[in-house]
């Protein structure tokens, strides 16, 4: 198979630009998604069923519908409703954050509920409030257990950010597709993008395993 390296060299600055945006979108998505996910997870665990209901449906919606549809809806309907124009980067960040929040919230819930009831009871009997017990006893332990599933979610998020190409956010996959459209060659752009995505996800997973080792108590 002939492989046109010269085309990749020609597109390298654009791939770099795209990669930077992909990293930016992913970081924004991870940060906002995690904070939002924590609140939604806590919301879903509320004892009053009625109060938990909106959180439950938030998760149902964002987890149960295709991300591609979500990103199109947000770009062409939600963002224009507020800004009166489209903004691909804003729409991509919103879609990634809202979507990952749904998954992250379930990871949080799983983490928190995996801690033995006795921990909460012991903390409360020491005189801590429910909030204090959560903050100082349950969450630090739960967080450690959440790292591997969170890592999964973040890696999925990085790859999902490629769907922002659909709304012409000039990220990595957008430039891959642009190159394909210009030269009618599939492998040069897509394999290049693949390698870059792999580098990004590998870096993230090594960061996470570093964090895991830092937090190891045994």
């Amino acid at each position, binding site marked *: 198979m002939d492989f046109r390296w010269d085309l990749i060299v020609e597109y390298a600055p654009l791939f770099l630009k795209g990669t930077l945006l992909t990293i930016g979108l992913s970081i924004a998505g991870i940060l906002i998604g995690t904070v939002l996910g924590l609140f939604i997870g806590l919301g879903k665990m509320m004892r009053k069923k009625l109060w938990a209901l909106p959180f439950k449906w938030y998760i149902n919606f964002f987890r149960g519908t295709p991300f591609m549809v979500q990103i199109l809806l947000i770009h062409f309907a939600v963002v*224009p409703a507020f800004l009166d124009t489209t*903004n691909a980067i804003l729409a991509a960040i919103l879609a990634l954050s809202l979507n990952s929040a749904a998954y992250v919230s379930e990871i949080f819930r799983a983490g928190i509920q995996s801690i033995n009831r006795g921990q909460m009871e012991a903390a409360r009997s020491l005189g801590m409030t429910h909030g204090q017990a959560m903050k100082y006893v349950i969450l630090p332990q739960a967080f450690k257990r959440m790292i591997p599933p969170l890592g999964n979610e973040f890696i999925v998020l990085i790859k999902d950010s490629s769907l922002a190409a659909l*709304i*012409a956010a000039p990220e990595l996959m957008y430039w891959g597709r642009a190159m394909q459209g210009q030269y*009618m060659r*599939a492998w040069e752009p897509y394999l290049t993008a693949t390698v870059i995505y792999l580098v990004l996800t590998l870096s993230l997973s090594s960061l996470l395993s570093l964090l895991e080792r830092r937090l190891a108590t045994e």
Partner: protein
Amino acid sequence: MKKLKMVTTVLLVSLSLILSACGTSKTGGDGGKKTLRVVTDAAYAPFEYQDKGEVVGFDIDFVKAVAKEAGYPVKVEHVGWDPVFIEIEGKTADIGVSSITITPKRIQTYDFTVPYFLSKNEILVPKGSPIKSAKDLEGKKIAVQNGTTGQEAVEKLFGENNDKLKKFDNNNLAILELKKGGVDAVVADNTVIETYVKNNPKDDFVFIEDDGTFEKEFYGLLLPKGSKLKAELDKAVNKLLDNGTYEKLYEKWFKIKPDIKILKEQQ
């Protein structure tokens, strides 16, 4: 637009090659009115596409009408983009119809009938837009479909991959972006744009022609070099252009009137 077909087709070529190699029907032998084998790449609505497995579209209706006029029965088969050319070159099929642009390069290897379709790029803008020609697009945000001649034309004018150009997966998304105010104009094929304007009067869009800037492309029926059918089919095409059949088919598929004069001028 057709010459910049999506690369997906290319990925299927190897498979199609194998299939076409074993699936060629015998069309040899002359005399009488034999059934013509028509090959197409049915992945380009509304020109040719598959409706529940049946190949339909403007091109298909047209080629059937032409063959009928010339007195031939036809059998239309979907074979894929590259196989269309391979089959016609190898004379295993009689006619290729797939929105094929007549180009000097292709004329070296194939024959074409007289042109039966005009394709050119046009600009879609909201009514009252300051954009009146391709020149006015300078500095404006433009949406196109990735991999089309519309994209090529805009990049030729304002530079490749410039910041103001947004490439979408298909024309519908590009037009939606214009509707939502994300861009100032869309550049796409005339049929796409004019049909959209006609079918969506509420959007208050208008189309702008700029024949000085955007090159015209003409589609022809693809024939093997030296095909004996050419004279007969040319006559049939002209008959349809003259007797209103062509206009009827065109309106059926595109809901707008064709420019027949310009097609005749090309002959």
